[in-house]
Protein backbone atom coordinates (compact mmCIF):
# COMPACT_ATOMS: atom_id res chain seq x y z
CA UNK A 1 0.00 0.00 0.00
CA UNK A 2 1.26 3.47 -0.90
CA UNK A 3 0.85 6.68 1.03
CA UNK A 4 -2.62 8.17 1.50
CA UNK A 5 -3.68 10.46 -1.38
CA UNK A 6 -7.17 11.24 -0.13
CA UNK A 7 -8.17 11.66 3.49
CA UNK A 8 -11.71 12.45 4.57
CA UNK A 9 -12.43 12.89 8.27
CA UNK A 10 -15.89 13.16 9.80
CA UNK A 11 -17.47 14.75 6.70
CA UNK A 12 -20.99 16.21 6.83
CA UNK A 13 -22.70 17.60 3.73
CA UNK A 14 -26.11 19.29 3.40
CA UNK A 15 -27.85 19.94 0.10
CA UNK A 16 -30.78 22.38 0.27
CA UNK A 17 -31.04 21.81 4.01
CA UNK A 18 -31.11 18.02 3.77
CA UNK A 19 -28.25 16.00 5.18
CA UNK A 20 -26.83 13.95 2.33
CA UNK A 21 -23.62 12.72 3.91
CA UNK A 22 -22.78 12.27 7.58
CA UNK A 23 -19.85 10.88 9.55
CA UNK A 24 -17.98 9.95 6.38
CA UNK A 25 -14.43 8.79 7.00
CA UNK A 26 -12.32 7.57 4.15
CA UNK A 27 -8.66 7.10 3.35
CA UNK A 28 -7.57 6.23 -0.15
CA UNK A 29 -3.99 5.17 -0.72
CA UNK A 30 -1.86 5.75 -3.78
CA UNK A 31 -2.53 3.29 -6.64
CA UNK A 32 -5.66 2.04 -4.95
CA UNK A 33 -8.71 1.25 -7.08
CA UNK A 34 -11.67 2.02 -4.84
CA UNK A 35 -15.21 1.16 -5.87
CA UNK A 36 -17.98 3.00 -4.03
CA UNK A 37 -21.38 1.39 -4.37
CA UNK A 38 -24.72 2.34 -2.92
CA UNK A 39 -28.33 3.09 -3.79
CA UNK A 40 -29.32 6.03 -6.00
CA UNK A 41 -29.57 9.15 -3.87
CA UNK A 42 -27.15 7.67 -1.36
CA UNK A 43 -24.68 10.52 -1.82
CA UNK A 44 -22.15 8.87 -4.16
CA UNK A 45 -22.03 11.72 -6.66
CA UNK A 46 -22.05 14.28 -3.84
CA UNK A 47 -18.97 12.67 -2.32
CA UNK A 48 -17.15 13.05 -5.66
CA UNK A 49 -18.36 16.64 -5.93
CA UNK A 50 -16.94 17.41 -2.50
CA UNK A 51 -13.55 16.12 -3.61
CA UNK A 52 -13.79 18.23 -6.77
CA UNK A 53 -14.58 21.35 -4.77
CA UNK A 54 -18.04 21.71 -6.34
CA UNK A 55 -19.84 21.20 -3.02
CA UNK A 56 -18.69 22.73 0.27
CA UNK A 57 -19.02 20.47 3.29
CA UNK A 58 -20.82 21.64 6.42
CA UNK A 59 -18.22 20.03 8.61
CA UNK A 60 -15.22 17.77 8.33
CA UNK A 61 -11.78 17.69 6.81
CA UNK A 62 -10.93 16.79 3.23
CA UNK A 63 -7.31 16.48 2.11
CA UNK A 64 -5.98 15.71 -1.35
CA UNK A 65 -2.31 14.65 -1.20
CA UNK A 66 -2.02 16.37 2.16
CA UNK A 67 -3.41 19.72 1.01
CA UNK A 68 -6.80 21.42 0.83
CA UNK A 69 -9.27 20.75 -2.02
CA UNK A 70 -8.76 24.26 -3.43
CA UNK A 71 -5.03 23.81 -3.58
CA UNK A 72 -4.85 20.31 -4.99
CA UNK A 73 -8.02 19.66 -6.95
CA UNK A 74 -6.03 20.08 -10.15
CA UNK A 75 -4.52 16.69 -9.35
CA UNK A 76 -7.93 15.08 -9.88
CA UNK A 77 -9.31 13.87 -13.18
CA UNK A 78 -13.08 13.68 -13.47
CA UNK A 79 -15.26 11.47 -15.66
CA UNK A 80 -18.90 12.56 -15.23
CA UNK A 81 -22.00 10.66 -16.23
CA UNK A 82 -22.70 11.29 -19.89
CA UNK A 83 -26.40 12.02 -19.39
CA UNK A 84 -25.82 15.74 -18.85
CA UNK A 85 -24.57 16.57 -22.36
CA UNK A 86 -26.44 17.94 -25.32
CA UNK A 87 -25.94 15.54 -28.23
CA UNK A 88 -26.66 18.20 -30.83
CA UNK A 89 -23.76 20.37 -29.62
CA UNK A 90 -21.42 20.87 -32.59
CA UNK A 91 -18.10 19.74 -31.12
CA UNK A 92 -15.53 17.15 -32.17
CA UNK A 93 -13.88 14.48 -30.03
CA UNK A 94 -10.54 16.29 -30.24
CA UNK A 95 -12.07 19.58 -29.10
CA UNK A 96 -13.70 17.90 -26.10
CA UNK A 97 -10.45 16.27 -25.00
CA UNK A 98 -8.27 19.37 -25.34
CA UNK A 99 -10.72 21.41 -23.26
CA UNK A 100 -9.08 19.80 -20.22
CA UNK A 101 -5.99 21.93 -20.96
CA UNK A 102 -7.92 25.23 -20.74
CA UNK A 103 -6.80 26.29 -17.28
CA UNK A 104 -3.16 25.80 -18.30
CA UNK A 105 -3.56 27.56 -21.65
CA UNK A 106 -1.54 30.74 -22.14
CA UNK A 107 -3.13 33.36 -24.34
CA UNK A 108 -5.74 32.67 -26.97
CA UNK A 109 -4.73 29.32 -28.41
CA UNK A 110 -3.67 25.93 -27.15
CA UNK A 111 0.03 25.15 -27.45
CA UNK A 112 1.61 22.39 -29.51
CA UNK A 113 2.32 20.70 -26.18
CA UNK A 114 -1.39 20.78 -25.26
CA UNK A 115 -2.32 19.10 -28.56
CA UNK A 116 0.34 16.46 -27.96
CA UNK A 117 -1.03 15.69 -24.49
CA UNK A 118 -4.60 15.52 -25.81
CA UNK A 119 -3.59 13.15 -28.61
CA UNK A 120 -1.67 10.96 -26.19
CA UNK A 121 -4.77 10.77 -23.98
CA UNK A 122 -6.91 9.74 -26.96
CA UNK A 123 -4.31 7.16 -27.95
CA UNK A 124 -4.37 5.79 -24.41
CA UNK A 125 -8.10 4.97 -24.69
CA UNK A 126 -7.73 3.81 -28.32
CA UNK A 127 -9.86 6.65 -29.67
CA UNK A 128 -7.25 8.62 -31.64
CA UNK A 129 -8.67 7.53 -35.04
CA UNK A 130 -12.01 9.13 -34.08
CA UNK A 131 -10.48 12.50 -33.18
CA UNK A 132 -12.42 14.48 -35.80
CA UNK A 133 -15.68 12.63 -35.22
CA UNK A 134 -18.63 14.60 -33.80
CA UNK A 135 -19.29 13.93 -30.11
CA UNK A 136 -22.99 13.34 -30.82
CA UNK A 137 -22.20 10.62 -33.37
CA UNK A 138 -20.42 8.32 -30.92
CA UNK A 139 -21.83 5.19 -29.31
CA UNK A 140 -22.26 5.14 -25.54
CA UNK A 141 -19.04 3.19 -25.07
CA UNK A 142 -16.97 5.42 -27.36
CA UNK A 143 -18.29 8.51 -25.60
CA UNK A 144 -17.27 7.12 -22.24
CA UNK A 145 -13.73 6.53 -23.52
CA UNK A 146 -13.56 10.10 -24.81
CA UNK A 147 -14.58 11.38 -21.39
CA UNK A 148 -11.81 9.30 -19.82
CA UNK A 149 -9.36 10.75 -22.37
CA UNK A 150 -10.53 14.26 -21.47
CA UNK A 151 -9.89 13.52 -17.79
CA UNK A 152 -6.46 12.08 -18.63
CA UNK A 153 -5.54 15.17 -20.65
CA UNK A 154 -5.48 17.10 -17.36
CA UNK A 155 -2.68 14.70 -16.33
CA UNK A 156 -4.28 13.71 -13.03
CA UNK A 157 -2.82 11.68 -10.19
CA UNK A 158 -6.26 10.51 -9.09
CA UNK A 159 -9.12 9.64 -11.44
CA UNK A 160 -12.75 9.96 -10.27
CA UNK A 161 -15.43 8.18 -12.30
CA UNK A 162 -19.18 8.62 -11.81
CA UNK A 163 -21.24 5.64 -13.06
CA UNK A 164 -18.99 5.27 -16.10
CA UNK A 165 -20.77 2.21 -17.47
CA UNK A 166 -24.35 3.36 -16.87
CA UNK A 167 -25.02 4.03 -20.57
CA UNK A 168 -22.88 1.22 -21.93
CA UNK A 169 -23.85 -2.34 -22.79
CA UNK A 170 -22.25 -5.08 -20.72
CA UNK A 171 -20.09 -6.35 -23.59
CA UNK A 172 -18.40 -2.97 -23.78
CA UNK A 173 -18.23 -2.57 -20.02
CA UNK A 174 -15.76 -5.45 -19.61
CA UNK A 175 -13.27 -3.84 -22.00
CA UNK A 176 -13.79 -0.52 -20.27
CA UNK A 177 -12.97 -1.95 -16.86
CA UNK A 178 -9.85 -3.52 -18.32
CA UNK A 179 -8.79 -0.08 -19.52
CA UNK A 180 -9.33 1.22 -15.99
CA UNK A 181 -7.18 -1.56 -14.58
CA UNK A 182 -4.40 -0.52 -16.97
CA UNK A 183 -4.72 3.12 -15.90
CA UNK A 184 -4.55 1.95 -12.31
CA UNK A 185 -0.88 1.05 -12.89
CA UNK A 186 -0.19 4.79 -13.13
CA UNK A 187 -2.77 6.47 -10.92
CA UNK A 188 -5.28 6.09 -8.12
CA UNK A 189 -8.85 5.37 -9.19
CA UNK A 190 -12.13 6.02 -7.40
CA UNK A 191 -15.21 4.69 -9.12
CA UNK A 192 -18.81 5.26 -8.09
CA UNK A 193 -21.52 2.89 -9.29
CA UNK A 194 -24.71 1.12 -8.38
CA UNK A 195 -23.66 -1.90 -10.43
CA UNK A 196 -22.32 -4.06 -7.61
CA UNK A 197 -21.35 -7.18 -9.51
CA UNK A 198 -19.41 -5.47 -12.31
CA UNK A 199 -17.57 -3.11 -9.99
CA UNK A 200 -16.60 -5.71 -7.44
CA UNK A 201 -15.00 -7.83 -10.15
CA UNK A 202 -12.42 -5.21 -11.05
CA UNK A 203 -11.73 -2.92 -8.08
CA UNK A 204 -9.15 -3.50 -5.36
CA UNK A 205 -11.24 -2.22 -2.45
CA UNK A 206 -14.93 -1.62 -1.97
CA UNK A 207 -16.98 0.77 0.11
CA UNK A 208 -20.72 1.12 0.47
CA UNK A 209 -22.26 4.57 0.72
CA UNK A 210 -25.73 5.48 1.89
CA UNK A 211 -25.49 8.77 3.84
CA UNK A 212 -22.56 7.32 5.64
CA UNK A 213 -19.73 5.14 4.44
CA UNK A 214 -19.30 1.49 5.25
CA UNK A 215 -15.77 0.82 4.29
CA UNK A 216 -13.82 -2.35 4.48
CA UNK A 217 -10.33 -2.58 3.25
CA UNK A 218 -10.92 -5.51 1.00
CA UNK A 219 -12.73 -6.47 -2.14
CA UNK A 220 -15.21 -8.74 -0.51
CA UNK A 221 -18.51 -7.40 0.61
CA UNK A 222 -19.93 -8.63 3.83
CA UNK A 223 -23.62 -9.25 4.06
CA UNK A 224 -23.66 -6.77 6.94
CA UNK A 225 -22.17 -4.01 4.78
CA UNK A 226 -24.75 -4.55 2.10
CA UNK A 227 -27.62 -4.62 4.56
CA UNK A 228 -26.41 -1.47 6.29
CA UNK A 229 -26.17 0.31 2.97
CA UNK A 230 -29.38 -0.73 1.32
CA UNK A 231 -31.38 -1.20 4.52
CA UNK A 232 -32.63 -4.49 3.24
CA UNK A 233 -31.11 -7.82 2.40
CA UNK A 234 -29.88 -7.71 -1.17
CA UNK A 235 -30.07 -10.80 -3.29
CA UNK A 236 -26.42 -11.13 -4.12
CA UNK A 237 -25.89 -14.36 -5.93
CA UNK A 238 -22.25 -15.15 -6.36
CA UNK A 239 -22.60 -18.00 -8.80
CA UNK A 240 -22.04 -17.39 -12.50
CA UNK A 241 -19.90 -14.29 -12.23
CA UNK A 242 -16.13 -14.45 -12.49
CA UNK A 243 -15.28 -13.14 -9.07
CA UNK A 244 -17.02 -14.12 -5.91
CA UNK A 245 -18.45 -11.00 -4.30
CA UNK A 246 -19.67 -12.60 -1.13
CA UNK A 247 -17.56 -14.69 1.14
CA UNK A 248 -18.64 -18.33 1.14
CA UNK A 249 -21.84 -18.44 3.16
CA UNK A 250 -24.27 -20.96 4.45
CA UNK A 251 -27.97 -20.81 3.99
CA UNK A 252 -29.99 -18.77 1.54
CA UNK A 253 -29.23 -15.07 1.22
CA UNK A 254 -32.06 -12.82 2.18
CA UNK A 255 -34.23 -15.40 3.83
Amino acid sequence: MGKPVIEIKNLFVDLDGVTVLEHVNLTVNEYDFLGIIGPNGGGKTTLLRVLLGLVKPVRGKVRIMGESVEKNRHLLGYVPQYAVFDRSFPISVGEVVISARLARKQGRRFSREDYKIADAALERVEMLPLRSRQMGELSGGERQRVLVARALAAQPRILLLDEPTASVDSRFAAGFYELLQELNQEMTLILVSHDISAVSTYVKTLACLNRTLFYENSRELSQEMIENTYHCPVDLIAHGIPHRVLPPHNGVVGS
Partner: protein
Amino acid sequence: MEILQFEFMRNALLVGLLVSVACGMIGTYVVVKRIVFISGGISHTAYGGIGLGYYLGFNPMLGATLFTIISALGMGLVQQRSSQRQDTVIGVMWAVGMALGIMFVKLSPGYTADLMSYLFGSILTVPQRDILFILLLDLLIIAAVFRYFEEFKAIAFDEEFARVSGLKVEFFNILLLILVALTVVVMIRAVGIILVIALLTIPPAIAGEFSRGLKGMMGFSVVLGIIFTTAGLYLSYLFDLPSGATIILVAAAGYILALLMKK
Protein backbone atom coordinates in the same frame (compact mmCIF):
# COMPACT_ATOMS: atom_id res chain seq x y z
CA MET B 1 -29.35 48.49 -57.88
CA GLU B 2 -30.46 52.09 -58.10
CA ILE B 3 -31.55 51.92 -54.49
CA LEU B 4 -27.87 51.92 -53.49
CA GLN B 5 -27.69 55.54 -54.61
CA PHE B 6 -29.50 56.53 -51.44
CA GLU B 7 -27.28 57.18 -48.48
CA PHE B 8 -29.93 55.89 -46.06
CA MET B 9 -29.95 52.61 -48.02
CA ARG B 10 -26.16 52.24 -47.81
CA ASN B 11 -26.32 53.02 -44.11
CA ALA B 12 -29.09 50.48 -43.61
CA LEU B 13 -27.04 47.79 -45.35
CA LEU B 14 -24.05 48.65 -43.16
CA VAL B 15 -26.19 48.39 -40.02
CA GLY B 16 -27.50 45.06 -41.29
CA LEU B 17 -23.92 43.83 -41.65
CA LEU B 18 -22.92 45.01 -38.16
CA VAL B 19 -26.03 43.44 -36.65
CA SER B 20 -25.39 40.15 -38.45
CA VAL B 21 -21.84 39.88 -37.16
CA ALA B 22 -22.83 40.53 -33.54
CA CYS B 23 -25.89 38.30 -33.50
CA GLY B 24 -24.20 35.51 -35.47
CA MET B 25 -21.39 35.28 -32.92
CA ILE B 26 -23.29 35.83 -29.69
CA GLY B 27 -26.50 34.17 -30.90
CA THR B 28 -24.53 30.97 -31.44
CA TYR B 29 -23.61 30.89 -27.74
CA VAL B 30 -27.16 31.84 -26.75
CA VAL B 31 -28.55 28.90 -28.73
CA VAL B 32 -26.06 26.22 -27.66
CA LYS B 33 -26.12 27.39 -24.02
CA ARG B 34 -29.95 27.57 -24.08
CA ILE B 35 -30.09 31.03 -22.56
CA VAL B 36 -32.72 32.33 -24.99
CA PHE B 37 -35.10 33.25 -22.17
CA ILE B 38 -32.43 35.16 -20.24
CA SER B 39 -31.50 36.98 -23.46
CA GLY B 40 -35.16 37.88 -24.02
CA GLY B 41 -35.22 39.33 -20.51
CA ILE B 42 -32.06 41.36 -21.11
CA SER B 43 -33.42 42.78 -24.38
CA HIS B 44 -36.72 43.89 -22.87
CA THR B 45 -35.10 45.70 -19.94
CA ALA B 46 -33.46 47.92 -22.58
CA TYR B 47 -36.76 49.77 -22.75
CA GLY B 48 -36.20 51.09 -19.24
CA GLY B 49 -32.92 52.65 -20.38
CA ILE B 50 -34.47 54.10 -23.50
CA GLY B 51 -37.17 55.71 -21.36
CA LEU B 52 -34.53 57.05 -18.98
CA GLY B 53 -32.65 58.55 -21.92
CA TYR B 54 -35.81 60.34 -23.05
CA TYR B 55 -36.61 61.51 -19.55
CA LEU B 56 -33.15 62.90 -18.76
CA GLY B 57 -32.46 64.01 -22.30
CA PHE B 58 -29.47 61.87 -23.33
CA ASN B 59 -29.11 59.41 -26.19
CA PRO B 60 -31.53 56.52 -25.49
CA MET B 61 -28.96 54.11 -26.94
CA LEU B 62 -26.68 54.89 -23.97
CA GLY B 63 -29.58 54.33 -21.59
CA ALA B 64 -30.29 51.01 -23.29
CA THR B 65 -26.63 50.00 -22.88
CA LEU B 66 -26.71 50.90 -19.18
CA PHE B 67 -29.94 49.02 -18.51
CA THR B 68 -29.05 45.88 -20.48
CA ILE B 69 -25.67 45.63 -18.75
CA ILE B 70 -27.28 46.05 -15.31
CA SER B 71 -29.87 43.40 -16.15
CA ALA B 72 -27.12 41.11 -17.52
CA LEU B 73 -25.35 41.37 -14.16
CA GLY B 74 -28.64 40.71 -12.35
CA MET B 75 -29.50 37.71 -14.54
CA GLY B 76 -25.95 36.44 -14.06
CA LEU B 77 -26.41 36.45 -10.29
CA VAL B 78 -29.77 34.68 -10.60
CA GLN B 79 -28.23 32.13 -12.97
CA GLN B 80 -25.50 31.27 -10.44
CA ARG B 81 -27.95 30.51 -7.68
CA SER B 82 -29.16 26.98 -8.24
CA SER B 83 -32.67 28.04 -7.25
CA GLN B 84 -35.67 26.32 -8.78
CA ARG B 85 -37.40 29.62 -9.55
CA GLN B 86 -34.79 31.13 -11.86
CA ASP B 87 -37.24 31.63 -14.70
CA THR B 88 -39.70 33.46 -12.44
CA VAL B 89 -37.07 35.97 -11.33
CA ILE B 90 -35.96 36.48 -14.93
CA GLY B 91 -39.56 37.03 -16.03
CA VAL B 92 -40.06 39.62 -13.27
CA MET B 93 -36.89 41.54 -14.23
CA TRP B 94 -38.03 41.45 -17.86
CA ALA B 95 -41.36 43.10 -16.99
CA VAL B 96 -39.91 45.58 -14.50
CA GLY B 97 -37.50 46.86 -17.15
CA MET B 98 -40.36 47.44 -19.56
CA ALA B 99 -42.52 49.05 -16.87
CA LEU B 100 -39.76 51.48 -15.90
CA GLY B 101 -39.45 52.47 -19.55
CA ILE B 102 -43.17 53.18 -19.82
CA MET B 103 -43.01 55.31 -16.66
CA PHE B 104 -40.03 57.33 -17.83
CA VAL B 105 -41.59 57.94 -21.23
CA LYS B 106 -44.83 59.12 -19.60
CA LEU B 107 -42.86 61.54 -17.39
CA SER B 108 -40.82 62.85 -20.31
CA PRO B 109 -41.64 66.32 -21.56
CA GLY B 110 -42.58 66.83 -25.18
CA TYR B 111 -43.15 64.58 -28.11
CA THR B 112 -41.80 60.99 -28.21
CA ALA B 113 -42.67 60.05 -31.76
CA ASP B 114 -39.72 57.83 -32.66
CA LEU B 115 -40.24 55.62 -29.62
CA MET B 116 -41.83 53.05 -31.90
CA SER B 117 -38.55 52.74 -33.79
CA TYR B 118 -36.89 51.41 -30.62
CA LEU B 119 -39.66 48.91 -30.07
CA PHE B 120 -40.00 47.63 -33.62
CA GLY B 121 -36.83 48.81 -35.33
CA SER B 122 -36.23 51.27 -38.11
CA ILE B 123 -33.12 50.25 -39.98
CA LEU B 124 -33.62 52.96 -42.63
CA THR B 125 -33.37 55.86 -40.19
CA VAL B 126 -30.39 55.04 -37.98
CA PRO B 127 -28.53 58.28 -37.22
CA GLN B 128 -24.82 58.51 -38.03
CA ARG B 129 -23.72 58.72 -34.38
CA ASP B 130 -25.66 55.54 -33.58
CA ILE B 131 -23.97 53.73 -36.48
CA LEU B 132 -20.59 54.67 -34.98
CA PHE B 133 -21.75 53.47 -31.56
CA ILE B 134 -22.95 50.17 -33.05
CA LEU B 135 -19.60 49.77 -34.80
CA LEU B 136 -17.76 50.30 -31.50
CA LEU B 137 -19.91 47.69 -29.72
CA ASP B 138 -19.36 45.28 -32.64
CA LEU B 139 -15.60 45.63 -32.28
CA LEU B 140 -15.83 44.93 -28.53
CA ILE B 141 -17.94 41.83 -29.16
CA ILE B 142 -15.59 40.52 -31.86
CA ALA B 143 -12.53 41.11 -29.66
CA ALA B 144 -14.06 39.28 -26.68
CA VAL B 145 -15.19 36.28 -28.74
CA PHE B 146 -11.83 36.14 -30.50
CA ARG B 147 -9.94 36.16 -27.20
CA TYR B 148 -12.14 33.76 -25.22
CA PHE B 149 -13.54 31.50 -27.94
CA GLU B 150 -12.21 28.28 -26.37
CA GLU B 151 -13.28 29.23 -22.85
CA PHE B 152 -16.84 30.06 -23.91
CA LYS B 153 -17.06 26.87 -25.96
CA ALA B 154 -15.87 24.60 -23.14
CA ILE B 155 -18.23 26.20 -20.62
CA ALA B 156 -21.16 25.94 -23.03
CA PHE B 157 -20.45 22.25 -23.65
CA ASP B 158 -19.83 21.14 -20.07
CA GLU B 159 -19.92 23.85 -17.44
CA GLU B 160 -19.17 21.53 -14.55
CA PHE B 161 -16.08 20.06 -16.17
CA ALA B 162 -14.85 23.56 -17.03
CA ARG B 163 -15.23 24.50 -13.37
CA VAL B 164 -13.38 21.37 -12.27
CA SER B 165 -10.57 22.19 -14.71
CA GLY B 166 -10.08 25.47 -12.85
CA LEU B 167 -11.79 27.92 -15.24
CA LYS B 168 -13.50 30.94 -13.69
CA VAL B 169 -16.90 29.88 -14.95
CA GLU B 170 -18.85 32.62 -13.11
CA PHE B 171 -16.69 35.31 -14.70
CA PHE B 172 -17.18 33.93 -18.22
CA ASN B 173 -20.92 33.42 -17.75
CA ILE B 174 -21.36 37.04 -16.68
CA LEU B 175 -19.04 38.26 -19.45
CA LEU B 176 -21.16 36.36 -21.97
CA LEU B 177 -24.37 37.94 -20.64
CA ILE B 178 -22.74 41.37 -20.93
CA LEU B 179 -21.90 40.52 -24.55
CA VAL B 180 -25.55 39.51 -25.03
CA ALA B 181 -26.49 42.93 -23.61
CA LEU B 182 -24.19 44.72 -26.07
CA THR B 183 -25.52 42.61 -28.95
CA VAL B 184 -29.06 43.57 -27.99
CA VAL B 185 -28.10 47.25 -28.14
CA VAL B 186 -26.51 46.71 -31.56
CA MET B 187 -29.76 45.13 -32.79
CA ILE B 188 -32.30 47.54 -31.30
CA ARG B 189 -32.07 50.09 -34.11
CA ALA B 190 -32.43 47.45 -36.79
CA VAL B 191 -35.26 45.22 -35.57
CA GLY B 192 -36.39 46.73 -32.25
CA ILE B 193 -36.50 45.46 -28.68
CA ILE B 194 -39.50 43.21 -29.21
CA LEU B 195 -38.03 41.42 -32.22
CA VAL B 196 -34.38 41.19 -31.11
CA ILE B 197 -34.72 37.69 -29.76
CA ALA B 198 -35.86 36.26 -33.11
CA LEU B 199 -32.92 37.58 -35.10
CA LEU B 200 -30.54 36.60 -32.30
CA THR B 201 -31.64 32.96 -32.38
CA ILE B 202 -32.93 32.11 -35.87
CA PRO B 203 -29.63 32.31 -37.82
CA PRO B 204 -27.71 30.16 -35.26
CA ALA B 205 -30.64 27.76 -34.99
CA ILE B 206 -30.48 27.18 -38.77
CA ALA B 207 -26.67 27.10 -38.82
CA GLY B 208 -26.62 24.60 -35.95
CA GLU B 209 -28.50 22.08 -38.08
CA PHE B 210 -25.73 22.06 -40.66
CA SER B 211 -22.54 22.78 -38.68
CA ARG B 212 -19.91 20.45 -37.28
CA GLY B 213 -18.14 23.05 -35.17
CA LEU B 214 -18.89 26.22 -33.25
CA LYS B 215 -16.68 28.35 -35.53
CA GLY B 216 -18.51 27.14 -38.62
CA MET B 217 -21.83 27.71 -36.88
CA MET B 218 -20.84 31.32 -36.15
CA GLY B 219 -19.64 31.98 -39.68
CA PHE B 220 -22.76 30.48 -41.23
CA SER B 221 -24.95 32.46 -38.79
CA VAL B 222 -23.30 35.71 -39.82
CA VAL B 223 -23.86 34.94 -43.52
CA LEU B 224 -27.50 34.03 -42.86
CA GLY B 225 -27.96 37.23 -40.85
CA ILE B 226 -26.64 39.28 -43.78
CA ILE B 227 -28.97 37.48 -46.18
CA PHE B 228 -32.01 37.99 -43.93
CA THR B 229 -31.36 41.64 -43.16
CA THR B 230 -30.58 42.50 -46.78
CA ALA B 231 -33.54 40.57 -48.18
CA GLY B 232 -35.85 41.97 -45.50
CA LEU B 233 -34.62 45.47 -46.18
CA TYR B 234 -35.16 45.10 -49.93
CA LEU B 235 -38.64 43.66 -49.54
CA SER B 236 -39.66 46.36 -47.08
CA TYR B 237 -38.41 49.01 -49.51
CA LEU B 238 -40.15 47.37 -52.46
CA PHE B 239 -43.55 46.93 -50.81
CA ASP B 240 -43.34 49.73 -48.25
CA LEU B 241 -43.44 47.36 -45.26
CA PRO B 242 -42.06 47.90 -41.74
CA SER B 243 -38.40 46.91 -42.03
CA GLY B 244 -37.91 45.20 -38.63
CA ALA B 245 -40.92 42.95 -38.99
CA THR B 246 -40.06 42.14 -42.61
CA ILE B 247 -36.52 41.06 -41.62
CA ILE B 248 -37.90 38.80 -38.89
CA LEU B 249 -40.48 37.22 -41.19
CA VAL B 250 -37.84 36.57 -43.85
CA ALA B 251 -35.67 34.94 -41.17
CA ALA B 252 -38.60 32.86 -39.94
CA ALA B 253 -39.32 31.71 -43.50
CA GLY B 254 -35.66 30.70 -43.77
CA TYR B 255 -35.94 28.75 -40.53
CA ILE B 256 -39.00 26.82 -41.69
CA LEU B 257 -37.29 26.09 -45.01
CA ALA B 258 -34.19 24.81 -43.21
CA LEU B 259 -36.25 22.54 -40.95
CA LEU B 260 -38.06 21.13 -43.99
CA MET B 261 -34.74 20.55 -45.80
CA LYS B 262 -33.34 18.76 -42.77
CA LYS B 263 -36.30 16.34 -42.67
